[in-house]
């Protein structure tokens, strides 16, 4: 697991995003057990307290749950996972739209370009 | 303290074994030489004493050097031990070395002395017949060896408080001052000359244990003085090691 970390941004948020991506893309399936604080800290060479904070946040957002005595598990709620997908996509979308608008594209142009680009990537 | 002693011993073990081996080889050579050439007895005995002295000096220097190194080495200074244990571990090493050397001297001389023409073996037997003489000699020998080590260590400790390049000279000066001062005070208290010791009396062809008759407090006074000095030196070293010597 080699993640590129940006030391300018809070690490715990970066790990959170990484785990969320793993969940959305299916590398971590609903109900999967995730690595313990220690294991993850060791693998990523990151302070265990930072990992702890990550997990606490993920638990707060109900993405991860702790089963006492057993460990931490990805939520089995499909709706939750959909939510994460939409959230993360939402961020991407906002950035994209803003960027395109700065370049001078209007709404119709954006839709045309996106459709065209998606079709092209399907053929590859 | 025994753990510290173990590592002091190990640090010096190579030099110790080398010194003892060479020393014994030389003594053996001298003994053999004496069997071949009868007329250089005096020279042989002199050389034997010389070789033992050098050996003792080498070992003594090693102990002092060990103390100096230990004062400045991180792995020693980080240990959760009271300084008195560091000192004790080296004093113990000194005593062990003295005992070993004494045993070797006795063994070698048991073989060598009877061959020396001018040595009166009867005189020597008389000495060993008197237990009080033997014990006195032995104890004062050990006490002397320990005292001189402690005072040199004190001088080393004083020198170690300074970070300048010339601190060796500070140490040497300190040692000279300590010896001069203690000698002077001793003279003031107890008068000049040896007040207790062994005298070879020619009259009765034997050794006599001398004790002062009319000096201040007699022999016990001198002993008390020596003991107090030793305690003061140990106290000073402990203080310096705790508060003043830094890495």
């Amino acid at each position, binding site marked *: 697991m080699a993640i590129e*970390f*940006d*030391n*300018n*941004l*809070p*690490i*715990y948020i970066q790990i959170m995003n990484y785990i969320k991506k793993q969940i959305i893309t299916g590398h971590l399936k609903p109900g999967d057990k995730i690595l313990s604080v220690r294991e993850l*800290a*060791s693998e*990523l*060479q*990151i*302070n*265990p*307290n*930072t990992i702890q*904070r990550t997990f606490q946040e993920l638990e707060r957002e109900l993405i991860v749950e702790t089963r006492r005595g057993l460990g931490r598990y990805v939520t089995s709620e499909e709706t939750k996972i959909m939510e994460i997908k939409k959230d993360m996509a939402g961020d991407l979308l906002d950035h994209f739209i803003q960027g395109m608008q700065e370049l001078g594209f209007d709404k119709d142009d954006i839709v045309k370009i996106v459709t065209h680009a998606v079709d092209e990537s399907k053929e590859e | 303290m025994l*753990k*510290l002693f*173990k*590592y002091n011993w*190990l*640090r010096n073990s*190579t030099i110790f074994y080398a010194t003892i081996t060479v020393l014994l080889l030389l003594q053996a050579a001298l003994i053999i030489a004496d069997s071949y050439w009868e007329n250089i007895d005096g020279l042989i005995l002199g050389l034997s004493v010389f070789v033992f002295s050098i050996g003792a000096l080498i070992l003594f220097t090693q102990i002092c050097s060990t103390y100096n190194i230990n004062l400045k*080495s*991180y*792995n020693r*200074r*980080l*240990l*959760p*031990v*009271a300084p008195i244990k560091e000192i004790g571990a080296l004093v113990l090493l000194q005593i062990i070395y003295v005992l070993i050397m004494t045993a070797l001297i006795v063994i070698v001389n048991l073989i060598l002395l009877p061959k020396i023409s001018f040595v009166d073996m009867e005189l020597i037997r008389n000495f060993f017949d008197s237990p009080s003489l033997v014990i006195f000699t032995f104890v004062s020998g050990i006490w002397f060896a320990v005292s001189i080590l402690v005072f040199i260590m004190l001088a080393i400790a004083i020198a170690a408080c300074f970070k300048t390049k010339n601190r060796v000279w500070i140490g040497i000066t300190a040692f000279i001052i300590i010896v001069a001062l203690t000698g002077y005070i001793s003279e003031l208290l107890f008068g000049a000359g040896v007040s207790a010791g062994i005298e070879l009396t020619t009259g009765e062809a034997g050794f006599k244990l001398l004790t002062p008759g009319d000096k201040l407090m007699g022999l016990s006074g001198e002993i008390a003085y020596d003991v107090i000095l030793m305690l003061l030196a140990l106290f000073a070293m402990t203080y310096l090691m705790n*508060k003043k010597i*830094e*890495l």
Partner: protein
Amino acid sequence: MKPLLEFRDVVKKYGAKSAVDHVSFQIQPGKIVGLLGSNGSGKSTMMKMAAGITHPSSGQVLIDGTGVGIKTKAITSFMPDSTLTDEWMRVKDAIAFYQDNYADFDSSKAKDMLEFMKLNNQDRVNTLSKGMKERLQLTLTLSRNAKLYMLDEPIGGVDPVARGKILDAIVEYYNEESSIIVSTHLLQDIERIFDEVILVKNGKLLLQDEVENIRINKKKSIDELFKEVYAEC
């Protein structure tokens, strides 16, 4: 909660110069703390005072509530920028020395670490390369079950492989009752393992803060912050 390490208005003077100038701070247990500063900023001196091998000119250093002394040395494991071994020793002698003299030495931990660091018991200490020597020092220091670990520049002048192993070892042996203080001026790899950093400059304490706070509030990495602060050095 009782701080594990506390500096109370500590001053250390060498002649007229203050190596440590009225420094006060606290470190709680369970933290990995970076003690940052350029060379000569006072951080080594601070560690040596906590280790009990240098003494403050004034002020107090407390470890687990007790003034620095024999009791605190028994719960403090310090890795200085110099050697922790005698030249005559082999690796096994160095381990034995620690085992004999420290009640909290964990020989199974040491064995694991020696394997992990690829060190041999029979190796002579004075034939080890600089990187291997660092690994041995680290093994000795971290094989104790101490409360306070202090590592003085553990990754300077060390090859990237050893550096990785050192960071691994620090994270591996972390536990909530102890704290590890690492002094360094090389931040890129290591800033991820810190909870907090303390910045010192010219003997004075500039800043003590949680690392993520700095990233959130100042929007920069510790490495960048460091470069800014010490730009003129």
